[in-house]
């Protein structure tokens, strides 16, 4: 080989090496590297949510010290990073997702593992889970994820605004019908026809249709998840009930007013700023990162969302949502992932993590930890609701995300554009019936 050819060969070799290096994964996650026993194993935990990344890292450092490994936490993780990571050659060892919606879709695609063996090997006590959040992860006999923390939604009301409107500040509405009346009394419209204060916005911040539909006695899937029931009467009634909060005051006026609402995590939040008298939100609002942080002097109450007047038995209805943990099927060291998952599910770790962030635990033993009581009586309302007989989980199927997206568009069209609920939901049922049957293998 002459010198010229040698130069070309070396240059090509360098280029190809650079290319391969840039395409290759990062540091191997597993411990089975050939680089000698001195190398500390690195486990990667990716978390889709995370208000306090440093605190989460500190929590996982404890596992690192315990197991003699290094745990790298990435939080919060952007949604669109998840799929490329799961399909790539070097996914994280444990993935914490902000909801269970996609666990079934990911399992169907072979991207996450079924966890029965992990549960067995890690001695994870399945009886310690509250039943409702666990159903998010169950598909027949399979367990596709494990719920870590859970969220509940309830009604918040501003006592000062109640008093100013001549309502008893200690008496929130007892029925959905009463809530409509209260909202009317609490809404102020100026001489120019513009809204100055609003009683209730049913979809404040995001949709709460799942809760309202449950209160009307149904859901958009049958309880066993085998039927699509998106045009059933409870769904139609729930959307029609929500619609009146827009049509009563003029949809454009309500939209214009709500467009001026401040950021969710800021003192300008419409509920904190006294622009909205009642709304639906989760337990974290009562914790140190939200109302006590942004508006400590706010005089408010929180209670379970009221049922319809003719169905008092539906009192304390809740719909569990929240974070779930999966093990990617491409994880390098499944044993290490399983051990880490088992540690995450231990009641003391669940209590520590969710107490700090004022979220609800999925472990019954963790819920007894005194730290939750220390979060105050308003947080306790949510802890008590966890044991409700009317506790449901958000039902998920392999087409949850696509259907939810279409459902949200339909809800938006009904609430914000005055569309007829029945007609639109019939159309949705027709559009998705076949896709749903295919997805659930019928």
């Amino acid at each position, binding site marked *: 080989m002459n010198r010229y050819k040698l130069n070309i060969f070396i240059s090509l070799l360098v280029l190809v090496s650079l290319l391969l290096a840039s395409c290759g994964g990062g540091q191997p996650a597993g411990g089975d590297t050939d680089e000698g026993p001195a190398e500390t194993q690195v486990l990667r935990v990716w978390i889709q949510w995370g208000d306090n990344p440093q605190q989460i890292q500190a929590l996982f450092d404890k596992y690192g010290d315990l197991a003699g490994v290094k745990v790298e936490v990435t939080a919060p993780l952007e949604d669109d990073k998840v799929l490329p990571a799961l399909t790539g050659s070097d996914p994280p060892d444990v993935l914490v997702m902000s909801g269970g919606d996609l666990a079934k879709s990911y399992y169907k695609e072979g991207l996450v593992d079924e966890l029965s063996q992990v549960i067995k090997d890690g001695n994870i006590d399945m009886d310690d889970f509250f039943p409702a959040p666990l159903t998010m992860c169950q598909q027949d006999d399979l367990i596709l994820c494990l719920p870590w923390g859970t969220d509940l939604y309830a009604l918040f009301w501003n006592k000062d605004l109640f008093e100013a409107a001549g309502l008893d500040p200690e008496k929130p509405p007892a029925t959905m019908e009463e809530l409509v009346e209260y909202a009317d009394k609490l809404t102020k419209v100026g001489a120019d026809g513009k809204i100055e204060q609003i009683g209730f916005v049913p979809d404040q911040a995001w949709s709460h249709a799942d809760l309202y539909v449950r209160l009307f006695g149904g859901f958009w899937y049958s309880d066993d998840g085998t039927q699509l029931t998106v045009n059933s009467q409870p769904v139609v009634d729930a959307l029609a009930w929500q619609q009146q909060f827009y049509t009563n005051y003029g949809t454009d006026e309500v939209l214009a007013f709500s467009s001026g609402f401040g950021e969710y995590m800021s003192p300008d939040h419409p509920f904190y700023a006294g622009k909205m008298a009642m709304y639906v939100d989760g337990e974290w609002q009562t914790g140190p990162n939200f109302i006590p942080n942004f508006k400590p002097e706010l005089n408010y109450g929180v209670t379970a969302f009221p049922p319809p007047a003719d169905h008092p038995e539906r009192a304390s209805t809740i719909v569990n949502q929240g974070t779930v943990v999966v093990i990617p099927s491409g994880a390098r060291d499944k044993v290490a992932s399983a051990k880490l998952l088992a540690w995450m599910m231990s009641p003391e770790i669940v209590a520590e993590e969710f107490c700090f962030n004022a979220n609800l635990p999925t472990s019954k033993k963790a819920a007894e930890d005194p730290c939750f009581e220390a979060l105050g009586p308003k947080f306790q309302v949510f802890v008590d609701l966890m044991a409700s007989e009317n506790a449901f989980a958000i039902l998920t199927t392999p087409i949850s995300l696509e259907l939810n*997206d279409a459902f949200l568009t339909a809800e938006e069209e009904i609430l914000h554009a005055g569309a007829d609920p029945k007609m639109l939901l019939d159309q949705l049922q027709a559009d998705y019936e076949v896709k749903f049957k295919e997805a659930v293998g019928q």
Partner: protein
Amino acid sequence: MEVMSSFKFRWPPRMPKWSRRERHNFRTGLLFLMPWIIGFLAFTLYPMAASFIYSFSIYHSRRPLEWVGLENYASLFSDKLFWQSLNNTLYMVAIAVPLSLLLSFICALLLNLKVRGQSIYRVIYFLPSIVPTVAGTILWLWLLNPQVGLINNLLGNLGIDGPNWFKDPDWAKPGLIMLGIWGMGGTIMIYLSSLQDVPTSLLEAAELDGASWLQRLWHITIPMVSPITLFNLITGVIAMFQYFAQAYVVGGGDNLGQPLNSTLFYSVYLYQSAFLFLKMGYASAMAWVLFIVILVCTLLLFKISERFTYYAG
């Protein structure tokens, strides 16, 4: 038969034999091109070929592809969201691109005038185009906020009840068009440089012959800058067919297409199908349809432009 028998196969003419030096130069050139060639093969040609194959299948990342033939393409035509996203995109192509070209040209004409402080005006017009897309979009979300936005307040002072902009499906796209026009500094600069290349001798000759400003503009300036108009038109059309970032920011990532799918553009729906609904095969079919639509539009524009474009020399 006679025709057949008269046919004779001919080998293509042989390449002239290269000298040792030419071969050396060729190899050296190839070596310098290698980074691009490897990049092109790995990051352009391979993904294109893969997406073409995926478009005829159901893609599973960890299982073999399921061959479905033309099913993905057939499904597109019965998918309401596909048509809605195509309509939204065509709206932008048909309205935003010509409007942006017209206003850019007018701005460039003004910035070409010899007035005091012209360089400052040029900087002012160009500045928005260097604002990052996400930052610019968030800024306009606030400017067009129906309750506290500057624009509706301004309209209110004039006695006009401003629309709900990004909360109203009828006004969301016009809001995005305004955002696009605000950031058209790049197009203005390209026009400006081409206006400065219009031969002054032609303009002076026309002026001496008594041509008015409008006649000089119509008969000299516009034809002379027509190749630039064609360039801006084609790049504008291609960019608009791929419109994504601004719509993604308006949708906040979680509510893509809001309000009421009025900002669900083709690329947004493609992204949603691939990365949120895990329908990679379907999204690949969408990508190939988009490729063909853009190709046809570009060829059509080239064909039509032959009559309206003047290339000096």
